[in-house]
């Protein structure tokens, strides 16, 4: 069965510092991979997606992610974090039937 692991429950970074959120997936075929962000009390906003092609994908708000098949990973990165990036981030894989299977999420705190 498909699964997604986000090993870090909480991450705290200083404003202006770089960020990397880890995501590992388990899926037999070529995965469709997504990162969503959820601010408190809000819905899920798509940051970026990978379907095929270039393994480095760019998203909104200055985020990027790199698909590494050999490591079954799809880590999210941002070179310089802003205080408004504080939120919860979810990695997801598009599974059989095109439902999404989500990871447990990583809560990002940004300290000034």
């Amino acid at each position: 069965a498909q699964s997604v692991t986000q090993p870090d429950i909480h991450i705290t970074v200083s404003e202006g510092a770089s960020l990397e959120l880890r995501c590992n997936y388990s899926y037999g075929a070529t995965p469709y991979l997504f990162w969503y962000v959820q601010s408190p009390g809000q819905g899920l906003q798509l940051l970026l997606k990978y379907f095929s092609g270039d393994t480095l994908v760019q998203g909104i708000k200055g985020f990027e992610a790199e698909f590494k098949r050999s490591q079954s990973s799809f880590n999210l990165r941002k070179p310089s974090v802003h205080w408004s990036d504080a939120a919860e981030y979810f990695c997801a894989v598009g599974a059989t039937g095109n439902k999404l299977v989500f990871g447990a999420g990583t809560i990002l705190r940004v300290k000034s």
Partner: protein
Amino acid sequence: EPEVTQTPSHQVTQMGQEVILRCVPISNHLYFYWYRQILGQKVEFLVSFYNNEISEKSEIFDDQFSVERPDGSNFTLKIRSTKLEDSAMYFCASRDRGSYEQYFGPGTRLTVT
């Protein structure tokens, strides 16, 4: 930009009552989904719906749950007899044919007392 909308934003109900959560997917989308997120937990798939029938459902989606597309715009989730453990945020999502990208609504927070 088109978006998925959900009503109400917050619903409080007593245990054993029926609730209907409403969603208006993006107008040209053909595939519809419900997910839920219990407080502090991951987002979980409930059901997918295409061509007026359920495509897939999770083990969470038991006989107490049903979905319907009563007209050309709404997509509803009904819980017949709510339990305390149904308290969660419920998200509706939709996608277009040929795209794997799902667009999520803002969610309905259901509180069962």
